[in-house]
């Protein structure tokens, strides 16, 4: 039980990471691959945020009742900051991914991996 309480957050993170990776590996539709990618990135965000927690700590906003010299009273602000940046990067990546998908759709009229491969084969035959 002790072990579980100490590590359950990591275990769930691992589970979500694997779900995201599964989506990217096994789904044949490109939109689903992007969804897998976003799940994968969300798992990383969860991982960092769970790193930031401290037993008995509160959110990193200065509060008069806990003096700042008592650093154990506040959670670690650094992973939170890093994740704000990483979230933005994730949003930007997904925006670009969907932009590329619209572009692919405009050219091939399909987003299924198999159909795309066929279309490419036909292209190279000409």
């Amino acid at each position, binding site marked *: 039980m002790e072990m579980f309480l100490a590590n359950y957050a990591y275990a769930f993170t691992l589970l979500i990471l694997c779900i995201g990776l599964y989506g990217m590996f096994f789904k044949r539709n490109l939109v689903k691959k992007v969804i897998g990618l976003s799940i994968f990135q969300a798992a990383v965000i969860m991982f960092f945020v769970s790193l930031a927690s401290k037993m008995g700590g509160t959110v990193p906003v200065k509060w008069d009742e806990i003096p700042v010299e008592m*650093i154990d009273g506040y959670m670690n602000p650094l992973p939170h900051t890093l994740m704000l940046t990483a979230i933005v990067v994730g949003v930007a990546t997904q925006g670009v991914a969907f932009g590329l998908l619209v*572009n692919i759709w405009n050219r091939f009229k399909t987003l299924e991996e198999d159909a795309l491969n066929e279309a490419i084969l036909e292209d190279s035959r000409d």
Partner: protein
Amino acid sequence: MMNQGLKWMVLLGFAGLMGWGMWGLPDRGDLDAPMNEKTTITGTPTPAAHYIEHAYKEAKTPNIVTVVLGDYRSIDTLGEVLVVFTAGLILILLLTNRRKISALDGGDS
């Protein structure tokens, strides 16, 4: 193209590796983890402790995350803004509909 079996092997290998590594991480919420100490093993100050202790004194801002984001690690945030800006430019480059624009220029809208 990777075949199915290889994909499963990569997936399971990744899960095993990550599980093994995560087992060795400090427990969640552990107050004695290296990142929650005041100094690292070699005696250099850890950033996190410095932020908590000095953020209010040095920027008069109670929200420590804002200070870290805006001041201590400001070049990260500049990079973040540039990432968003880049994404906007990329969408212009990829999806500006030239055909529609030329049709509008031609006058048949």
